[in-house]
């Protein structure tokens, strides 16, 4: 269990500090042989970069990628503050 926690901390730092990713808004959860990524990135290309960096640091883990790509559609409503 302890080693899973260290591994997940290492992976999290890797995606924050690697210039290819620099993602602080992506969560990393290690469960046994799997690593789950969740959060949001600005475009599709960055999901692939995340997977590549994770794979380099922990090639033994199977990556499950739940990361969303940002929705950039026009707002459908507005909020009136009274």
């Amino acid at each position, binding site marked *: 269990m302890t080693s899973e926690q260290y591994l997940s901390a290492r992976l999290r730092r890797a995606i924050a500090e690697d210039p290819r990713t620099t993602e602080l808004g992506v969560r990393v959860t290690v469960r046994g042989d799997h690593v789950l990524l969740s*959060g949001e*990135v*600005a475009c599709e290309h960055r999901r692939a970069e995340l997977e590549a960096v994770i794979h380099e640091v922990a090639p033994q883990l199977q990556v499950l990628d739940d990361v*969303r790509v940002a*929705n*950039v559609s026009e*707002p*459908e409503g507005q*909020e009136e*503050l009274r």
Partner: protein
Amino acid sequence: MIRIAAVGDVHLGEDARGRMRPALENVGEHADVLLLAGDLTRHGTLEEARVVAEEFAGLPVPVVAVLGNHDHHDDKEVEVAELLRDSGMHVLEGDAVTFQVDGLRLGVAGVKGFGGGFAGKCGSMFGEREMKSFIRHTIDVSERLRSALFSTDADVRVALTHYSPVPDTLRGEPPEIYPFLGSYLLGEAIDATSTDFAVHGHAHFGTEHGLTPGGVRVRNVAQPVIRQAYAVYCVEPARRVAVAAGG
């Protein structure tokens, strides 16, 4: 009524160029001003800043921005701000800008802000010099926000930051990292200056709605939170209770 569009944490780079543009070109139909709550880039490089400048150039409404921690990463925050200003954007850091909208004066004061934590669970200017300079930076930027808000003569006064002034909009983030996400000193500056509305980003897993201890509405507009190109808020001048002389 003033319609304020706002978004933060768009993290643009060459690979995301043009993605927001279709929604931005119609921003004039939704809002009178567009606020950008920091983290416009990924690494704070001039190349990325150029993408930001092009993405937000030539819009039908004024664009007002503060920088975020990502925009500082390459240690070129001054050059990044300059490049964005040259493209027509207002980039605030301890200053303010005023616009005439619908017969009303809208004032926006902005700073990046910083961490430190919230009342009762925060760092203080004590101990190692690293710790002192961390908290000193928060105190400095909060004081700059306070004086920028205070000196803004407007019917509607808005505070724009990257870091959060309240813990409310951080719900969803692990409580252990709140001290890296904002500071109560920013909230105190907002509450001390008859500010009407506050907008911030930075907390991707946070929530949109919050309130300062003094009753000012706060919105976390980080793009992963609002899940659209920008959110729109309609703000009216506060009905401030006039204190009768001698009353």
